[in-house]
């Protein structure tokens, strides 16, 4: 087994290590849960952890592989979350098998997020750098705010829509409100589990890693490194930019589905679907090393767990969090630290090669 690992191509070996980390982490967490060694606080964090890992890995496709700064990632997550929660709530009594219902909700969340990715991607991908970042930030906020004024109800006559209030739905007496504006959707079935989350993380990693190491991934990275040269050898820049952006949006949608089915009440606010979230995801990607898939995964886990684990320090919590941010930045980017890592930690070097 180990011998086989050595003869594999470097990129294959690196991705195998990444998958192994996820699987080992899953087994350890399950073991701790069953032996009662995991606090209920941490148990509650397991699904959100998976959500953040998926978000970080998918954003890395745009920021690291395509090389464009997107600050609207939470918007796609929002779209995936609400469309799937809407479906699940409607189908709650029709489809009673939870995994099947979740699977269908997942497909819907991914599809809707991908459609939004294409619709938003076509105009905004004409921009570059700071301009693209600002416009994606704006689109993310627009999505969040649109969801906040959306009212949908159902009665014997079918669906009713309004952008004003519940009264505006004009429903019959037997009607129920499904999406209640700023209060969002309540009563989504809690179908997300840590197992499903882990599987989704593995699928996300599989898609992003394999895409990166394929013909299409090479074209995307070629555009990142030099757009003019990529065009000169006949690579369709618009097509591949849109492809990376859409796949990234679709995966963020999947993260949204996972997120929505872990909560009984889903409402859009600044902290879960607004720019705070988009910036947090970007922090995971930057601290984990732009372009390093495994790095963004690890950064997402550490930075999500840290505030919770530091609750005991009360007032000093955010101070320690900030210091850890700075230390991680140094560890990942300072030339001396990179030198030290390559000398003493072989995985650091392999990780770098996997990026290339």
């Amino acid at each position, binding site marked *: 087994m180990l011998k086989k690992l050595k003869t594999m191509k470097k990129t294959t070996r690196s991705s195998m290590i990444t998958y192994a980390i996820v699987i080992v982490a899953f087994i350890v967490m399950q073991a701790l849960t069953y032996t009662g060694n995991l606090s209920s606080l941490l148990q509650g964090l397991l699904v959100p952890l998976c959500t953040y890992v998926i978000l970080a890995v998918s954003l890395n496709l745009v920021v690291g592989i395509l090389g464009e700064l997107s600050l609207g990632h939470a918007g796609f997550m929002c779209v995936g979350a609400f469309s799937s929660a809407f479906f699940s709530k409607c189908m709650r009594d029709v489809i009673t098998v939870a995994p099947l219902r979740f699977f269908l909700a997942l497909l819907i969340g991914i599809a809707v997020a991908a459609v939004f990715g294409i619709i938003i991607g076509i105009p905004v991908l004409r921009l570059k750098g700071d301009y693209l970042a600002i416009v994606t930030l704006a689109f993310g906020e627009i999505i969040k705010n649109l969801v906040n004024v959306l009212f949908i109800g159902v009665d014997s006559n079918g669906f009713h829509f309004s952008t004003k209030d519940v009264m505006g739905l004009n429903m019959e007496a037997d009607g129920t409100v499904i999406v209640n504006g700023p209060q969002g959707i309540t009563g989504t079935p809690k179908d997300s589990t840590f197992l499903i989350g882990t599987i989704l993380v593995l699928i996300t990693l*599989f898609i992003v890693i*394999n895409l990166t190491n394929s013909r299409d991934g090479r074209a995307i990275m070629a555009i990142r490194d030099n757009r003019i040269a990529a065009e000169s*050898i006949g690579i369709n820049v618009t097509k591949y930019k849109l492809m990376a952006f859409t796949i990234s949006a679709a995966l963020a949608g999947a993260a949204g589905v996972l997120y929505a089915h872990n909560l009984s009440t889903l409402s859009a606010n600044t902290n879960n679907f607004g720019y705070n979230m988009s910036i947090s995801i970007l922090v995971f990607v930057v601290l984990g090393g732009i372009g390093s898939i495994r790095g963004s995964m690890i950064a997402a886990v550490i930075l999500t767990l840290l505030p919770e684990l530091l609750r005991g320090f009360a007032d000093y919590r955010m101070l320690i969090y900030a210091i850890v941010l700075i230390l991680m930045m140094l560890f990942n980017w300072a030339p001396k630290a990179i030198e030290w890592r390559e000398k003493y930690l072989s995985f650091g070097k392999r990780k770098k090669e996997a990026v290339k």
Partner: protein
Amino acid sequence: MAALLDVKNLGISFGGLRAVNGFDISIEKEELYGLIGPNGAGKTTVFNLLTGVYKPDSGKILLDGQDITGKKTIDISKAGIARTFQNIRLFKQLSALDNVKAGLHNKHHYSTMAGILRLPSYRRVEKEMDEQAMELLKVFDLEQEAHLTAANLPYGKQRRLEIARALATEPKLLLLDEPAAGMNPNETGELMDMIQFVRENFHMTILLIEHDMKLVSGICERLTVLNFGEVLAHGKTSDVLNDPQVITAYLGE
């Protein structure tokens, strides 16, 4: 026989500046043609017009009888023109091998799904691409560097890698923009041999911009001299280089 590249009356203005005006050129198959001229004469602009980076506002470009005037860069690449750049434009973070494989992009296909799911077509096509790219790297004596990141290659090798990448698109016409810029006489000599080799082995038609007169007089059969965006002279290399007008343009009165 019709020329491979036939350009008539090509022109473009940037604001009030007529950067290229009434540019004509006719290059036969498998010819090695030089485009020279003082700095700012519009040589690179001609390349950018030929490859669709700029749209000409007058004139016609025929490649092998096909009208490619005003077409997009990717369509011109598919029609068969490949180029290198004056300031090297490699895919810096990719390996030398991947740079060439990127050049093979339109010659080998498998679907996105096949790539993600690692279907047999992915393995087969990637293997073909690897083999073909390695062959090209061998031609340019770069096989040792195949897995090195392009940005870490020495300057001369980066220039050669750029030519290899351009050839990977299997062009009919290869445009080289100052291939010897920044090279020492030794490297220039090697480059000359390499260009000759490419021309003979790939039956390639080559149009090159160059300042190095040793290289130009050594390998180019015919020359066009550009000055202030207009053709000053064209014809056999030795005739053009002895033309008093050309000497004046280069050295001043």
